[in-house]
């Protein structure tokens, strides 16, 4: 089976010029290699500024890597091939509030995405938008809502709808759960699991929440300072971490978890 997403030797150099007097800061991301099959979930985790967001952006084509290739279902995803680039792999950002334009309605946002990427007439577009809204757990009436009329969780669902509406093969999400409350988080996790099962979508998400990472990911990738320090199936990495840093991360997570279970024993 051809993996739906395959990344080979991806390298991206991020240059930041701080001032005329200081030398240019360079942050090198990569080389990154991984493969993901349909219906699988890959979690990317690591410290802040380890390059996770840069990787997410290069996967969807927001930034162009200097080296390496990204293959979608075996075919190279070129910047010039807008059809595949925008259509098959889509992005969800952390702060749903800033992902939605406050001056236009939810319906307009989704309508534009469809107009640019699908050959549907106006009536069909509206039907598709309404279907997608219902699929993510919103109402048809939300078509006419503005951003300020929606709660955090609902805004996140709109971001998910925008990503899903083109029936992509892969969705990349940058910390989708971090800004959500626990109850809303559970609902969003369930929603994503449902959609993944129904559409057979692959899901790449960045998260610091190791509990969620362990629960919903098949594969996990730990990053630090732009390099992948450990990668593998979630079970393997969580049960038997190899690298120092991974061990530290997982230990600190489990020490918190174990303290919870200690309470049981005391009882």
């Amino acid at each position, binding site marked *: 089976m051809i993996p739906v997403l395959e990344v080979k030797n991806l390298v991206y150099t991020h240059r930041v010029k701080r001032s005329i007097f200081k030398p240019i800061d360079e942050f090198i991301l990569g080389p990154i290699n991984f493969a993901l099959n349909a219906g699988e979930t890959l979690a990317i985790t690591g410290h802040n500024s380890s390059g996770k967001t840069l990787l997410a952006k290069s996967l969807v084509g927001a930034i162009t890597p200097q080296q390496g290739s990204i293959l979608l279902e075996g075919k190279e995803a070129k910047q010039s091939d807008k059809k595949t680039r*925008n259509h098959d792999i889509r992005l969800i950002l952390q702060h749903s509030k*800033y992902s939605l334009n406050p001056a236009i309605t939810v319906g307009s946002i989704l309508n534009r995405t469809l107009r640019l990427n699908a050959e549907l007439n106006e009536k069909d577009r509206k039907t598709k938008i309404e279907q997608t809204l219902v699929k993510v757990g919103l109402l048809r009436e939300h078509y006419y809502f503005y951003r300020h009329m929606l709660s955090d969780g609902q805004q996140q669902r709109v971001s998910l709808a925008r990503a899903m509406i083109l029936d992509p093969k892969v969705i990349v999400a940058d910390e989708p759960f971090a800004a959500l409350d626990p109850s809303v988080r559970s609902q969003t996790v369930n929603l994503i699991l449902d959609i993944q099962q129904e559409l057979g979508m692959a899901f790449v998400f960045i998260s610091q929440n190791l509990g969620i990472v362990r629960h919903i990911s098949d594969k996990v990738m730990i990053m630090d300072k732009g390099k992948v320090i450990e990668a593998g199936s979630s079970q393997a990495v969580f049960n038997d971490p190899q690298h120092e840093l991974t061990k530290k991360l997982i230990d600190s997570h489990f020490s918190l978890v174990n303290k919870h279970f200690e309470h049981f024993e005391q009882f």
Partner: protein
Amino acid sequence: MTQFNLYEEEFHPSPLMHIWLEFKRSHFALIGFAILLLFCAIAILAPLLAPYDPNVQNTNAILLPPAWEGNGSIAHIFGTDTLGRDVFSRTLYGCRVTFGSSVFLVLIASTIGVALGTLAGMKKGIKSSVLNHLLDSLMAIPTLLVAIIIVAIIGTGLWNSMWAIILVLIPQFVHQTRTFVREEMKKDYILLDKLDGASSPRIFWSSILPGMFELLAVQSTLALSVAIIDISALGFLNLGAQSPVVELGASLSQSLEVAYTAPWLVALPGFFIFLMVLSINIVGERLRTALRNRLIH
């Protein structure tokens, strides 16, 4: 099955509607708005409303005081001037020129300014930065002075003075638009638009422009207030509208020599200019507050 959310039944207005509702809360602002609408009506309907031709001279009725004075007559509500022309008709036509030309030139200046500002905002680089700084330094000079200089170069007359003021008003539109567009381009939702495959013009029309309306409304009211004052000032200095075109500032300066014997000839045009600027400023101030309140919500 979708669950109908009974709890969410509430009146949620669109952003523009929200601004209108905030605006309506101040009775002062509504009065100002009504006065503005009145001036718009005058600007359009002056030929129908004026009882006399403003340039017809009636030597039998020279310097008649307004109707509410002792020896005034109802035939000339605002009295007549030194040449026997009816002041009421002249005031109506004057309002038409002053207000109408101000609105027209604000429209032109805003269109050009927004277009330039958008181009400067969407492109990065040193060129747009230099343009911005040049315009900023131009904005430091009072608009009237620059307008006078331009009129001195291109000559007097209503159209020339209008072009001068258009040129003078463009920098502030460019500056505001450029700042706004630059800020918007950094936002996440624009990135998502680009990832959807939207081209720059499309991004501007459908994502940035809808958010710009309120800003433009506020800028335009400010510009309108400046335009009215500048047009009348240029008219007062005889650099603007020339006879036979009737303009409030020009009629003000023509009446100065008889100011002691016929004070109404000075007071009435002055009062109408004052009313125009006051109503614009009240409306503009309320718009700004409504905009600020909306952002807080």
